């Protein structure tokens, strides 16, 4: 009898834990499904649904320049996913992808021994890990980004950390990205603080800011699939699959955080610092939104 009671208590405790564990991402999952759904519907048939989603885009242009219907994974291509002129232009550029040389550099850096004789492989025995970043480390109680992981590997091995955002760090991340191609993004929300970090990132994404009083959402959800001047606006869904990104404007690679910081600054706000809490939270939220999408970075952008 007692044994049975213990068994029942134990089982109920385990199941409670499971329920709680599932609860931490309940809101995020709801958000993510609605987010994906919005994009799929918006790009299902822009011509037929012009009134709802593209009221100010000339019909002629919708018919001529828009690629549709877009499926889930199609959003990996950012502005090239829907805008034919950009897609054609970049197909030519990517005949000889400008990111290839920096990726080769990244591979060399990855395999070059540190002063202690070890390499990055001592920290990343399997380099196909980008799909899990950024992740919430419950022991450290903070978000760990792939850039942090690279630098921490260096420090453990007695090397100086690299500058975040670009340069050698972005090259190593690009190599890891290439090795992770085809892996599905898998961001988890393991506890309550992780859920709070997700919510903080979500707020940063949706709340208007800067002297332009605009938000990430206004340009990359609401206005995704429209043009600002002649530039096609990229959908936020899938935005992190292409990272790090080679930007012609930069003449080099940049990490997700570099891109996000630039975007925040474009709203007329002070530029957030690399690896600052809010920027990591934004990256965490945004990457979660693309859960289940296959990585294929790096890619080339304007």
């Amino acid at each position, binding site marked *: 009898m007692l044994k049975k009671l213990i068994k029942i208590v134990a089982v109920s405790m385990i199941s409670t834990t499971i329920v709680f564990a599932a609860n931490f991402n309940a809101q995020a999952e709801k958000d993510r499904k609605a987010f994906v759904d919005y994009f799929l519907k918006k790009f299902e048939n822009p011509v037929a649904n012009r009134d709802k989603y593209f009221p100010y885009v000339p019909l002629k242009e919708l018919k001529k320049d828009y690629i549709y219907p877009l499926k889930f994974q199609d959003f990996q291509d950012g502005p090239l996913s829907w805008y034919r002129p950009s897609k054609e232009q970049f197909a030519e550029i990517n005949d000889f992808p400008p990111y290839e040389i920096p990726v080769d550099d990244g591979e060399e850096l990855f395999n070059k021994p540190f002063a202690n004789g070890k390499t990055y492989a001592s920290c990343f025995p399997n380099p196909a890990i980008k799909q899990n970043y950024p992740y919430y480390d419950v022991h450290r109680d903070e978000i760990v980004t792939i850039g942090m992981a690279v630098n921490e590997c260096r420090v453990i091995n007695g090397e100086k950390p690299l500058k975040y955002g670009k340069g050698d760090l972005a090259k190593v991340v690009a190599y890891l990205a290439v090795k992770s191609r085809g892996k599905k993004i898998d961001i988890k929300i393991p506890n309550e603080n992780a859920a709070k970090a997700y919510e903080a990132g979500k707020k940063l994404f949706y709340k208007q800011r800067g002297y332009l009083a605009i938000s990430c959402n206004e340009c990359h959800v609401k206005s995704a699939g*429209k*043009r600002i*001047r002649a530039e096609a606006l990229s959908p936020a869904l899938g935005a992190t699959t292409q990272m790090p990104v080679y930007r012609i404007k930069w003449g080099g690679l940049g990490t997700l955080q570099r891109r996000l910081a630039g975007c925040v600054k474009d709203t007329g706000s002070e530029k957030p610092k690399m690896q600052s809490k809010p920027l990591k939270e934004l990256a965490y939220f945004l990457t979660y939104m693309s859960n289940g999408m296959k990585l294929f970075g790096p890619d080339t952008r304007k």
Partner: protein
Amino acid sequence: MISVKKLLAIAIISAISTTVVNAASNEALVKEGRKVFVTKKQGNCLACHAVQGDPSIPQTGDIGPKLANLDAYPKAYLFEKIWDPNKTVPNSLMPPMGRSHKITKHQIDALVAYLQATTKSK
């Protein structure tokens, strides 16, 4: 003593010249307004809007409506809309360029003059 005729003539001449001066200054204002509209560091309005009656503006965006028939609206309404659109449309996508002091009141007046003159309904 000034004769009535002379008085009348003076009045007419001054009326005409005022109109001429007004027309000239309005023309300058319209020209200035167009510059505010297309200049990235000023209004940068073309980033989102095309203008009915001014198809020569290159590479206009399509986030906001193509501006048309704005002479049908009172000047003060258009001024407010440009100063801070969130007042009339909460969460408007349009930046509050006046409230943010990115363009001056005079520049907004110029924009209104330009838009009303250019998008006139016939």
